[in-house]
């Protein structure tokens, strides 16, 4: 006659130390993400509002929302390109110049360059040069 021992269940909620450390690390990453989420959420919404406002022709709203994006993240290229397009499509020369200045030092991909070409006044067109990104 052969006998087999009944399997012994593991102790409930008893986890290896390395797993607890791993769980802490993941929870830490989660907490860090949640801490950062609010400002990024606000800026992302501003960006979406800016793009939606520009699409429907509300340039004042678009400019204000892009300004909020750039206040929070001054190095945001998407913010600079967006506000540049808004300002370059303005009738005021001062706004156009301000818009052009937002593009200084930015390497544009072809898609963004084509968007800019649609609105940029003739006198600024010669100020771009091809570079390797």
């Amino acid at each position, binding site marked *: 006659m052969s006998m087999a021992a009944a399997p012994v269940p593991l102790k409930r909620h008893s*986890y290896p130390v390395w797993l607890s450390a791993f769980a802490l690390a993941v929870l830490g990453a989660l907490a860090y993400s*949640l801490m*950062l*989420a609010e400002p990024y959420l606000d800026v992302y919404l501003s960006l979406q509002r800016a793009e939606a406002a520009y699409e429907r022709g509300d340039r004042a709203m678009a400019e204000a929302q892009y300004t909020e994006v750039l206040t929070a993240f001054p190095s*945001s290229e*998407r913010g600079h390109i967006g506000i540049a397009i808004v300002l370059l499509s303005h009738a005021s020369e001062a706004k156009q110049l301000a818009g052009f200045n937002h593009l200084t030092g930015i390497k544009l991909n072809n898609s963004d360059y084509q968007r800019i070409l649609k609105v940029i006044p003739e006198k600024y067109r010669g100020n771009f040069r091809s570079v390797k990104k």
Partner: protein
Amino acid sequence: MIVLPGFLIAILTFPGIIVHEAAHRFFCDIARVPVYEVCYFRINGPQGYVIHGPTDRLGAHFLISIGPLIVNSLLCAVLCFVPLVAFKLDVSQTPAVFIFLLWLGVSIGMHAFPSTQDVQSFSAAVKRGSGRSPLLLIAKLFQIVVVVANALRVIWFDLIYAVALAHVPLLLLAGTVQ
């Protein structure tokens, strides 16, 4: 299409496997279902598994089988949110920690889907518990989705799912803006 051996994918996405199996184990403990053996991560063979005792409670089956899908999916969506917004803003000098968060989130999301065995046992439990009810139909449909999803892993469905899931919060937010 890039083809990578399973062990390499397992190594690259090991946090997702550990979270998936830990969630199985945790929900077994919560549901007071005995666990006999656990492997949280290994490179060869099944990359992780939890051997647990039977239960006739549908709620317990749901927690154990579907819990990891919910946990892994939520973690993926939350962890990827900030890095994805930063990339959308095209901020210069994105912090390296954002790359880490994105890798962690996508790794966890890639292992969200239950195994075919998990959903088969869930469907069987629904059948035993409620017979031919609308719940059984839903469980069976879900089983088909999971079987197809697991089969499509060869064409990176797990990665596609994780990337799509990571974008869900951004799409939902964009949808709220008029």
